[in-house]
């Protein structure tokens, strides 16, 4: 296991290094010049050149890249072109919104999807099994911004129970207000994520229900509950955990839309602003941190799968991303 962990960590570092190269190169291939954003009306070529020099975008790409990597090695995410403020502290303050949002939505989605998916499979011939299945199908088709707007209209604008958006200026120093601000966005993400997870749980359960080992266990005298608990759950959870990892990662990155609808100062809205302004250090910083998070989530999913399923322990699995 120790050897596996080491190899897996090395793999993670190599992935991160590759990702940072790709990130850097792709950004520089976008059309547009960040210096345009920094000069005022009627600026002449020499002023634009000065702006380029000030932000370092006039230096050769390899030099810019080594500069960036050097900063990263020191734990410094650089300085925004547009605001000339450091990126790192802003990323961490944005994470105070995005991490609770994503994790809470994820937990809620799992709490919805596991029972719903199981019932949809096990009771697929009853009306409520079919209904659950149908509703989850519908849930997948709903765009997240639309659901967010509906929830705002019902619970904020009409009922007045919850805020329509925003986050308290003092953040978690006002815990009650902070939690209230996150309720609707969490529910929005959880419902959409839960719908697709329900489909996966359902199909994994269906596989198990039709499997030979379950039939054998039953034939050996195990009750259905015991057979499911001992054999079914373990087997069904392996593919589901893969999916959970992917869903969690994509929620982290996909928070842009929800953060915009609910006016939350999270990582997604920071990324959106950075892109609009060609602010490379901001885009790089946010994407680098997200990439790191995604790789870590994949790592955790792999580990959990190996603990659950001894058959995976023989090989280096990279299948969960």
């Amino acid at each position, binding site marked *: 296991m120790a050897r596996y962990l080491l190899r897996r960590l090395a793999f993670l570092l190599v992935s991160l290094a590759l990702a940072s190269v790709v990130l850097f190169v792709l950004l520089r291939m976008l059309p547009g010049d960040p210096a345009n954003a920094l000069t005022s009306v009627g600026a002449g070529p020499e002023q634009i050149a000065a702006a380029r020099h000030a932000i370092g975008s006039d230096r050769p790409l390899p030099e810019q890249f080594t500069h960036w990597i050097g900063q990263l090695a020191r734990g410094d995410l650089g300085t925004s072109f547009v605001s000339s403020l450091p990126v790192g502290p802003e990323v961490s303050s944005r994470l105070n919104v995005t991490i609770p949002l994503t994790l809470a939505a994820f937990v809620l989605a799992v709490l919805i999807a596991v029972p719903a998916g199981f019932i949809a499979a096990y009771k697929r011939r009853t009306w409520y099994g079919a209904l659950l299945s149908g509703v989850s199908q519908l849930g997948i088709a709903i765009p997240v911004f639309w659901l967010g707007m509906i929830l705002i209209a019902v619970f904020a604008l009409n009922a007045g129970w919850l805020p329509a958006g925003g*986050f308290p200026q003092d953040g978690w120093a006002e815990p009650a207000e902070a939690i209230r601000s996150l309720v609707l966005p969490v529910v929005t993400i959880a419902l959409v994520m839960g719908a697709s997870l329900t489909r996966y749980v359902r199909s994994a359960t269906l596989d198990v229900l039709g499997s030979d080992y379950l039939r054998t266990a039953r034939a050996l005298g195990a009750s259905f509950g015991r057979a499911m608990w001992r054999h079914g759950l373990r087997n069904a959870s392996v593919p589901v955990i893969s999916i959970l990892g992917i869903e969690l990662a994509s929620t982290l990155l996909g928070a842009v839309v929800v953060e915009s609808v609910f006016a939350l100062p999270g990582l997604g809205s920071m990324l959106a602003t950075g892109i609009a302004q060609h602010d490379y250090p901001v885009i790089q910083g946010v994407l680098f941190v997200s990439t790191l998070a995604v790789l870590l989530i994949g790592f955790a999913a792999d580990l959990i799968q190996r603990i659950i399923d001894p058959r995976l322990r023989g090989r280096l699995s990279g299948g969960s991303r």
Partner: protein
Amino acid sequence: MNITKSALYGGATAATLALTLTACGGGSNGGSASGGAYDKNATVGVGSLYEPQNLDNTAGGGQGVTEALAGNVYEGLFRLTDDGKVEKLLAQDYKVSGDGLTYTFTLRDGVKFHSGKKLTSQDVKYSLEKVIGKDSQSARKSNLEVIKDIATPDAKTVKVTLSKKSISFVYNLSYVWIVNSEAKSLKTSEDGTGPYTLNKWTRGSALSLDRFAGYWGRAAANKGVVFHYYKNATALNNALLTNAVDVVTSEQSPDALDQFKNNQNYKVSDGDSTTKLLLAFNDKAKPFTDVRVRQAVSSAIDDKKLLESVWGGYGKLIGSMVPPTDPWYEDLTKVNAYDTARAKKLLKDAGYGNGFTFTLDTPNYDPHPTAATFIKSQLAKVGITVKINTITPDEWYTKVYKNRDFAATLQEHVNDRDLVWYGNPDFYWGYDNKQVTRWVEQAEAAPTTAAQTELLKKVNRKTAEDAASDWLYLYPQIVVANSKLSGYPVNGLNSQFYAYDIQKKG
């Protein structure tokens, strides 16, 4: 895109409507306090789409920092009033030498910075040098580069010598914030002399101001202001509907107005902005080199119908680059007014009796695509075929603004007093009239503002007659506020939002 450049054009993220000026001039403010006492200790919530980039207006703070801090936290020697006039603020008095090159300012007594330090001439000198310094990103940098020397004979006197006459000097000074010369980290903190101090700025979320107890003038009518920042108009409107904010500085979505218009809990005010929507011809490229063609196009488009379809009853028609709040305004809507028969005749005279085809470079965000489609259908009626080429703000900047590679384009111009760009033959639209250039130069060197106004009126009339561009309409400046609020600014002359006169009923 592009925050500082939004002074010229805006993108979806840095939308361009200039906001509002205050308060000090006359009672034109949002809703009179209809009797009843107000709460001196109320906190006013302001909803805005324009978050500052940082807190320094010479370091790319953008439109947002002007909105939040100008007049509220920082003050200039002069300030702009709601009707576009300039009045003394930190300057107690000033004298201009006979040759118009030396300005001597006497500073107001008893002014303190928020840090407690007394205002001195050194601070004024420092602040001016900051604006014209090498690293300055101030939008007024080029205007103030006429400053040759700044002397401080004593603690309350500042003597500025100019390299040439500049009648707009005092006006331009109203954009210069007086900052404590010893202040540090102005990108994230402040040290001004205004009626509010900065409490806290939480990036991506909000900026709060508290009433400053040591203010030299009349104390603010509220205990504090919190600017809440939103990324889209819907979230902003929702915040107003749920009382998360009391006032929205600039309403950008005409469709959303109905929910406030017929609701007694809200007041909708329709003020004047300085944002003009232009169909800008490339006056140096055929066929728009011919004044008759430009006049024909201007006469062939029914601006009134366009404004109606975009803003539904809000906004104003303009016949030139000058909005009503500029001192040299004149109603020129009759010049090259809508008249298709005239348009056809002009085209025939210019040798385009059978029409022609041109490409219209159209920025990809509202209202440009709507306007482009409308123009296309209007011009089709006089035989002109329009090809709409949709471009991003970045492409616009490179293709149109820098490379001048265009026939005609749509663009919003936000600045006040920006008629003078027609005196610059190198500007992107390429209007080149020696007489106009001379008038603009003479106006800047004029001995009095009256003489300046007279000259710029000539420029205004000439460019309008020449159809240098086609000025489609003036944007409305719509402020929506909770009915409990009064004393807020309603006109959009600049990006400012003076908050100190806002009264909130308990």
